[in-house]
């Protein structure tokens, strides 16, 4: 049974009623087409109403849906071939970051993604998709490898944050994120970053510095998770929904701010409802943007990437008036 959120319940109930009715009609051989069409129309309206008006926090919940496609799901769907490469060559292999060489429509590319588990067992292995420093070191190693062999890089980002653990701190979590960000900025090969679910702070940015940055329709990206923000503001993580409004973390906001380049629409009801359609949609966007950045001359690539980030920031040379 797929997890259903509170706000989806009226729709899911209606969909179930329609399905039941269809079964009944089929078994009895009676004509209920008019009624069914009416119900379908109603369901369609409801779908639009629900999914086109998601609140920011509902979107955050969609991004966290346990059945949402993961990096490995996309890799399986989109690449004809894939060889996973493991380890940071220093400490261990971090299963919360996956990476390797894949073939996308005939072209070898380096793929890196943060990887959540599907169930408790998988999540224990994947550490709930929270990377350790060695995960980021692995990512960096694979990026440098891609640069050496002139392969484009695709990153799939779905991480609520870098792991806040004792050993992670001992092994330099902050330092390695800084190194990832800095070095990724200067890698002279095309980089396409796709935020597929959660884009939580430095842990996401560490694999998020690219020439094109895309975001799924029900994904979020911010400096802090809504829960942590609510904890800081009101000492109450249950007010995350309010914090999500304040943070302006939706794809529409980020597109307007010029932080991302495009929004990848999801099948109605979210990517988790239809992996196949999501995969096709993802493929089309990767094809288009990969072609676009592959055309940029290598010597211009880094300059343009740096210029893009150099321009981000809101400030003024006038002091803010006091009454604001």
């Amino acid at each position: 049974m797929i997890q259903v959120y509170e706000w989806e319940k009226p729709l899911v109930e209606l969909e179930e009623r329609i399905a039941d009715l269809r079964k009944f009609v089929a078994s009895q051989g009676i004509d209920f087409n008019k009624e069914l069409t009416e119900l379908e129309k109603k369901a369609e309206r409801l779908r639009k109403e629900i999914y086109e008006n998601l609140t920011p926090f509902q979107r955050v919940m969609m991004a966290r849906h346990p059945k949402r496609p993961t990096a490995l799901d996309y890799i399986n769907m989109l690449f004809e071939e894939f060889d996973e490469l493991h380890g940071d060559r220093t400490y261990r292999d971090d299963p919360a970051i996956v990476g390797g060489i894949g073939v996308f429509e005939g072209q070898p590319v380096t793929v890196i993604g943060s990887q959540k588990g599907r169930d408790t067992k998988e999540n224990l292995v994947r550490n709930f998709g929270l990377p350790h420093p060695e995960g980021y070191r692995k990512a960096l190693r694979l990026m440098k490898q891609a640069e050496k062999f002139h392969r484009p890089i695709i990153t799939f980002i779905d991480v609520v944050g870098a792991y806040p653990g004792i050993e992670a701190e001992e092994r330099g979590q902050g330092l390695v994120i800084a190194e990832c960000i800095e070095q990724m900025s200067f890698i002279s090969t095309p980089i396409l970053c796709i935020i597929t679910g959660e884009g939580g702070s430095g842990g996401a940015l560490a694999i998020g510095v690219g020439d094109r940055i895309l975001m799924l329709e029900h994904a979020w990206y911010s400096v802090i998770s809504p829960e942590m923000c609510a904890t800081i503001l009101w000492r109450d993580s249950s007010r995350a929904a309010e914090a999500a409004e304040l943070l302006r973390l939706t794809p529409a906001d980020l597109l307007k701010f010029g932080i991302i380049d495009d929004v990848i629409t999801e099948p109605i009801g979210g990517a988790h409802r239809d992996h196949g359609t999501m995969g096709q949609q993802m493929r089309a966007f990767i094809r288009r943007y990969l072609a676009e950045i592959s055309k940029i001359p290598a010597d211009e690539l880094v300059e343009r990437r740096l210029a893009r980030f150099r321009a981000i920031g809101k400030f003024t040379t006038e002091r803010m008036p006091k009454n604001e």
Partner: protein
Amino acid sequence: MLNVFRSRPKYAKVQRTDGEQRREFPDNLWTRCDRCGQMLYNKELEKAMHVCACGHHFRLSAYQRLSMVADEGSFIPFAPVYSVDPLGFPGYGEKLVKAQELTGLDDAVLIGHAQIDGYRVILAIIDFSFIGGSMGSVVGEQLTRGFERALEEQLPVVIFSGGGGGARMHEGIFSLMQMAKTAQAVGRHSRAGLLYISVLTHPTMGGIYASFSSLGDIIMAEPGALIGFAGPRIVEETTKQKLPEGFQTAEFALEHGMVDMIVKRDEMRSTLSRLLRYHVRGEGK
């Protein structure tokens, strides 16, 4: 007040803006050491560079730090830029105004040209009293300009980063992007063969630690400074483990290979001077 600082590049006399130091005695004559509990006469404490006999390094304001590090009268601040409230975040506007009044700074960083023992540098100091020393668009922009100016003029950069707030939450995604922007500014400066010394002071955490402050050619830390990515409370809550003694202190960072050296406050200036001398190119100062 700001104009006073700007029109007179010579830095101001030490001014106590640190809330912590005021707590105990309203007459402002005495301060209790956070570590050993000793009552310290403020005038003596000032002479001792705000370091207790027990070794505890009190937090400094940016201007206090400036007076201890830079040659007198050498500091020429950059043109100011001010924060806006890009997300319309509740209370942020007021917070900025209050912080400006409290610290006499435009934002959480004091930055400009300076000389340290005669060596010309771009010097930046993050002030914890300004919204936790957090990095929003202004801090990101000023630091970036710092590295750009340093690149143009072939100067070393020295940054004191005591930013416990990390990236500034109130500016959302714009703050996060400053991590990339500053890291890239360091990268350009670094790739031109220029020196950047990062000094981690109490506390250097979150988005500040995970960007420019970790990218120094030489990273030093003040004794006892809290240094890390995730805050200790969050680590404790997430892992449900008891934190080891001295977790995330400068000493812990040194032991785990994350900083080059720990430098006491009274040796900071001479250490910086030495390191700058090692990297002098051409005709000297």
